[in-house]
C-alpha cells in the first residue's frame, strides 16, 4: 500500500481523489522546500510527510536543509524569540553571520533552487536566500510558522526587507499575518494521523503507560502535555486539579513536558511546578525526552479529559492531537485554541483555574458527554486539521500562484 492509500483509509478516499485532481495541473513541476533542520520541531515533522505525499502525486518535490554554525543558530533562535515578542535587540555581528550563512547556502543550493517552479522557504532562518536569486525562474513563498503577531519591531523591520520581495507568504492564522506587499495566504497547521504521536494504539500499550507511571486505570485522569513554559500555565493546571480534587478525591493528574535542556527558563518553571504539586501521589509531573511520541500518544489516550490551559498560544497542536484521539479539551481562551475548542461541543474554553476545575467536575460527572464531545472533536479534526487538508491547501496555493491574483480559477 502506498502512502496516499494509507491516508485514504484515515481521511477518506474522496479526500485523496481530490488531491489527485488538484495535483494534475502541477504534474512534473519542480518544488523545493527549504528549512533549517531535518529532525526535531514541528516544521520538520510536517515536511517529513508532506514531501513524500506530494511526490506520490507526481510532483517533483525536494526538501533541502540549510547549514550553519552555532553563531548562526544563536542568531536565528534570538530572532525567533524576538518575533514572538521578546524585546531584545540583536547584535550587528550576529546579523552579519546570518546574512553570510545564507549567502553560503545560496551557492550550495543554487543548482536546485534556480530552476525550481515553486520554492517554499520555511521560517526566518533561510529567508534571505531569495535575494541571491535575481534570475530565479519560479514562484517563491515564505512560510512563517511562528506567531509573529506582536514582534519586536526593529527585528521584524530587519527581516521584512528579505521577506517583502517574495511572491507570497503563508501564515498559520489571520492574526499572525503581517503587512506585506504580496498575497498572504492562511494555512493552519496539521497533524499526521499516522505518526507515532497520533497513530491508533492497542489497549495493552496504553496499559503499559498506566503501569509505568503508576496510574490507576480505574480512576479519572486529566492530562496536559506541553513544555514547562509559563505561557502554558502549568501552575494553573495544578491549581485547577487541586480545586477539582476537593470534589473528586480519586482524580489523577499528569503534566507531561519535553526536555528543558535548551531552555534555561524551563528548568525554573519545572521546579516551580514540582513544588506546586508537592507530595500529592496523584499529581504526576513528568519530564519526557523529546522523542517520547508513543508515550505522549498513550498518555493522551489514557486521559478522560485533556487540558491545555495556556494563557498565550500559537495554534496549539497538542489540542488537535488530543481531539484526534477523541478526547474533549479544556483549553485557555486564547489564540488557535479558540479555533478548535467550542464550548459544549469539543470541550470548554476557560480563563482561570477555577473555570478549568468547574469544567473538569462537570465533564467527569457526565461520562456520556465526554464520549459525545470526544466524537465531535475527532470528526472536527478529521475534516479540518489532518495533513491531507494541509497538502490540499498547498496544492491550491500553487495552482493559484500560477494564475495570478484572480479570486476564481477555473481549471479546464
Amino acid at each position: 500500500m502506498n502512502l496516499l492509500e494509507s491516508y485514504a483509509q484515515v481521511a477518506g478516499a474522496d479526500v485523496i481523489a481530490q488531491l489527485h485532481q488538484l495535483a494534475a495541473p502541477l504534474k512534473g513541476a519542480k518544488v523545493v522546500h527549504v528549512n533549517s533542520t531535518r529532525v526535531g520541531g514541528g516544521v520538520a515533522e510536517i515536511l517529513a510527510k508532506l514531501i513524500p505525499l506530494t511526490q506520490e502525486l507526481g510532483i517533483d518535490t525536494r526538501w533541502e536543509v540549510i547549514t550553519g554554525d552555532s553563531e548562526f543558530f544563536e542568531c536565528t533562535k534570538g530572532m525567533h524569540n524576538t518575533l514572538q515578542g521578546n524585546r531584545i535587540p540583536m547584535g550587528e555581528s550576529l546579523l552579519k553571520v546570518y546574512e553570510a550563512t545564507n549567502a553560503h547556502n545560496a551557492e550550495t543550493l543554487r543548482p536546485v533552487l534556480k530552476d525550481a517552479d515553486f520554492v517554499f522557504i520555511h521560517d526566518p532562518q533561510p529567508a534571505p536566500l531569495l535575494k541571491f536569486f535575481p534570475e530565479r525562474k519560479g514562484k517563491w513563498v515564505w512560510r512563517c510558522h511562528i506567531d509573529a503577531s506582536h514582534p519586536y519591531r526593529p527585528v521584524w523591520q530587519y527581516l521584512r526587507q528579505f521577506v517583502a520581495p517574495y511572491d507570497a507568504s503563508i501564515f498559520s492564522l489571520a492574526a499572525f499575518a503581517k503587512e506585506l506587499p504580496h498575497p498572504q495566504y492562511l494555512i493552519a497547521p496539521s497533524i499526521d494521523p499516522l505518526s507515532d504521536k497520533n497513530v491508533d494504539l492497542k489497549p495493552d500499550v496504553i496499559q503499559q503507560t498506566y503501569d509505568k507511571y503508576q496510574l490507576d486505570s480505574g480512576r479519572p485522569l486529566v492530562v496536559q502535555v506541553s513544555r514547562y513554559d509559563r505561557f502554558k500555565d502549568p501552575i494553573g493546571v495544578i491549581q485547577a486539579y487541586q480545586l477539582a480534587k476537593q470534589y473528586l478525591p480519586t482524580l489523577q493528574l499528569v503534566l507531561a513536558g519535553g526536555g528543558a535542556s535548551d531552555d534555561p527558563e524551563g528548568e525554573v518553571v519545572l521546579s516551580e511546578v514540582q513544588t506546586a504539586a508537592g507530595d500529592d501521589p496523584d499529581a504526576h509531573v513528568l519530564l519526557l525526552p523529546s522523542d517520547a511520541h508513543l508515550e505522549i500518544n498513550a498518555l493522551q489516550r489514557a486521559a478522560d479529559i485533556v487540558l491545555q490551559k495556556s494563557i498565550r498560544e500559537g495554534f496549539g497542536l497538542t489540542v488537535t492531537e488530543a481531539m484526534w484521539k477523541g478526547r474533549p479539551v479544556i483549553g485557555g481562551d486564547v489564540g488557535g485554541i479558540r479555533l478548535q475548542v467550542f464550548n459544549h461541543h469539543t470541550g470548554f474554553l476557560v480563563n482561570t483555574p477555577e473555570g478549568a476545575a468547574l469544567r473538569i467536575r462537570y465533564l467527569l460527572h457526565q461520562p456520556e458527554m465526554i464520549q459525545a464531545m470526544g466524537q465531535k472533536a475527532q470528526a472536527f479534526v478529521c475534516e479540518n486539521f489532518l495533513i491531507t487538508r494541509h497538502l490540499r491547501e498547498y496544492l491550491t496555493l500553487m495552482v493559484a500562484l500560477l494564475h495570478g491574483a484572480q479570486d476564481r480559477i477555473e481549471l479546464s
Partner: protein
Amino acid sequence: MMARPDPTEPASHMQPFSIKDCALVAMATGRKARVLQELRSELQDIDTASIYNHFWGGLLQSRFGEREYNNDFASWVRHGVHDAILAERLSALAPTTFSTLESLRQEIVELIDNRLDEAEHLSWTRATQQFEFLCSQIVVFDTTMQLQHPKELASVITTLSISSVFYHFIDARRRTADERDDFSDWLTTFGDEFAPLQEDLASIDPYFGSLSELRDRLGQVFTSYFQETTP
C-alpha cells in the same frame, strides 16, 4: 400526463451535467477592526469577495460546523464587541435574499448605523478580539464525472465531496443567470418536466447547517423525488 424519459436511457439530446469540485484557500486582506465603528468604515469599501467569504467561506474552511452565528460579522459583534442585539440582527441576514453582494454590504452597514444610533457607547467600546477581514481564492476543477439524466443525482449526490456540493449548490448562486443552484439550472434544460423537483430544491435553505448536512438533505430530496415519480 407528461411523458418521462426512460431513466436508464441517456437523454442524448440534453447537455450532460459535469460534476466539478473546488478548493478554497484563505487569504488575509491586512484590514482589521477593533471597534464597531472601524468595522463599519472598513465595510464601506472592502472587496465584495471578502463579504462573500465571511458569509459563505466558513462552510469550506477550518471552522466548526455548528456555529452559533451564521456569519462572521454577527459572531464578532457577539463575542468581540459583546453586543447581543446587533449580533442577532446581523445573524438574521440571509445572503440568498440579496440580489447582489453590494446590496448585502449596504444592509450590513445600515444595521450597524442603526445600532450605533441606539447605543452610543458602541462607537468607542474596544472589542476584546479584533476582526480580521479575509478573502479567498477558489480553484475549480473538473472531476470528469458526468451525469446523463437527473435520476442519476439520487445515487451520485451522496458520493460527492462536500466542496463539490458547495460549488454546485452555493457557489452556483454567484454564477448562474437566475442566481440558483447548478442542479436546478440543469433541470431547466428539460423544460417543465422537473419543475416540482426544482421547487423542492428551492425550498432548501443552504445557510443553515454544515455542508455534509446539506449533502444529506439533497440526497433525501433526489431519492424521494425519483422514488415517487418512477413508474
